[in-house]
């Protein structure tokens, strides 16, 4: 399914967080959303999930409107969010965290297979299946958070700064997994701070600054430091 944002406007009280953002994410592609802090990247993802006040514009999934729907209904429509800071349930076990992810599943049955696919993608969490999720390391928790989103078998995957606070080796694991997820046909919208890696991985990357889309970069721009820096300060 294709996710489309059309002139999206997010406003918190008197503050405009996102101004007139338009983008599209099609199945089998990763679209990056990068930019400085406070640019409105997280707000965009929250708006899609119905968790931020939308003041204008449209959000559609294959043409069907998502705007104004409750968070749980957006999730049940096939959009999964991996929130910033992981937001896993520390007091529940890894297994229970994954079971929670099943809440948005649209197909009856097949849960065990979905679990298997997640474990194959992130072998480390299989070993910790019965452990309390709070005992996992940051990198393991991030993998759990992505797995939890995947077991719902969504069509669209949103990620909010998955590499935040992770060691470079784990970032590799996560980004490799994202490539595999893209290959399996999902539409992926990736919000990130690590501009270079994101631009290199994504099919295209939009630079957001002060709520507005400034520039769109392709993987070929990944090595062009000047262009990247310039985009951030545009």
């Amino acid at each position: 399914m294709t996710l489309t944002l059309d002139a999206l406007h997010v406003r918190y009280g008197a503050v405009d967080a996102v101004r007139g953002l338009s983008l599209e994410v099609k199945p089998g592609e990763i679209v990056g959303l990068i930019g400085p802090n406070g640019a409105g990247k997280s707000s965009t993802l929250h708006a899609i999930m119905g968790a931020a006040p939308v003041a204008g514009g449209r959000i559609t999934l294959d043409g069907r409107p998502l705007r104004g729907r409750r968070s749980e209904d957006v999730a049940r429509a096939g959009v999964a969010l991996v929130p910033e800071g992981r937001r896993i349930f520390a007091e529940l076990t890894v297994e229970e965290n994954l079971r929670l992810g099943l809440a948005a599943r649209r197909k009856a049955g097949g849960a065990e297979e979905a679990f298997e696919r997640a474990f194959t993608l992130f072998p480390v969490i299989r070993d910790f299946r019965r452990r309390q999720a709070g005992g996992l390391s940051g990198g393991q928790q991030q993998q759990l958070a992505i797995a939890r989103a995947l077991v719902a078998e969504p069509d669209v995957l949103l990620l909010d700064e998955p590499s935040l606070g992770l060691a470079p080796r784990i970032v590799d694991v996560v980004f490799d997994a994202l490539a595999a997820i893209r290959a399996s046909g999902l539409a992926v919208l990736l919000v990130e701070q690590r501009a270079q890696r994101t631009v290199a991985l994504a099919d295209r990357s939009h630079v957001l600054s002060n709520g507005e889309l400034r520039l769109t970069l392709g993987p070929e721009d990944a090595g062009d430091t000047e262009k990247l820096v310039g985009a951030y300060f545009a």
Partner: protein
Amino acid sequence: MTVTWQTIADAVSLGGIYALMAVGIGLVFGVLRLVNFAYGQLIMAGAFALALASQWNWPLWAGILLCFAVVLALSEAMDQLVFRPLRGQTPAVMLVATFAVAFLLQSIALLWFGALGKIATSVSSLNTPWVIGGVDIRKISVVAVLVTLACLFALQLLLVRTSVGLHMRAAAMDFTTSRLLGVRANRVIGSAVLVSGFFAAVVAILLTVQFPLVTPSFALQDTIVVLAGVVLGGLNRPVPATLGGFTIGFASGFLGGALPTNQSQYLDSFLFAAVILVLLVRPNGLFTRHGGSAERL
């Protein structure tokens, strides 16, 4: 100080009943962050239903059914009319609102049944003693404990083995993220309210055996004491809250029965002084792992 087996049995059974009440209050707090001051009135409504049933000479099973029907209906009404519109308000505002609802319901009962109340004679046979090895223990004490254990066990199964239970636990920890994962807010809240109401009905039945006189202030003092126990145990988590309820019930029953009246008069003061102490020093409760910071509350 006189301690008999009956005293201990009474204390344990009161502890059990208070544990059930604590669960009822704790479940709703977990998902709604709302302390339902009017929980006692649900129990009162159930007790009046039993009283009416015995007045109309209904058979026991019909009375029990009526009790459940009334309590569940009232509980649902509270949720739709009061809890839902108040969602998102501060916990203090919600406390005041449920305080108002409690008074409201009490006054309706006063209007309807008068201050003298009614008698519920449903299961009075349980108020008679068994004689075990020369010791008298009232049947209701044993039954109350068994019923409590059964209910808690069933609840535990619900929370751990079913998706609804998992969703309720997750919602109590982090409602926003749960919803982002697809957990349906209304369904979770509705389930918590349902189970909470169910427990209130059970408590109504158990209490009317020992206290068949049902007045508009039935279970009011008990609710206040249970609230204290829940705060002491730990409002945020189901197990500590239940333990808190049990402990306070056991302590009240034990000291109330064992101490002579002139010494047990000030029990309430000690209890509430302890509540204040806990709120100052360990706001998350005595039985929780991180008694620490006041943020949760």
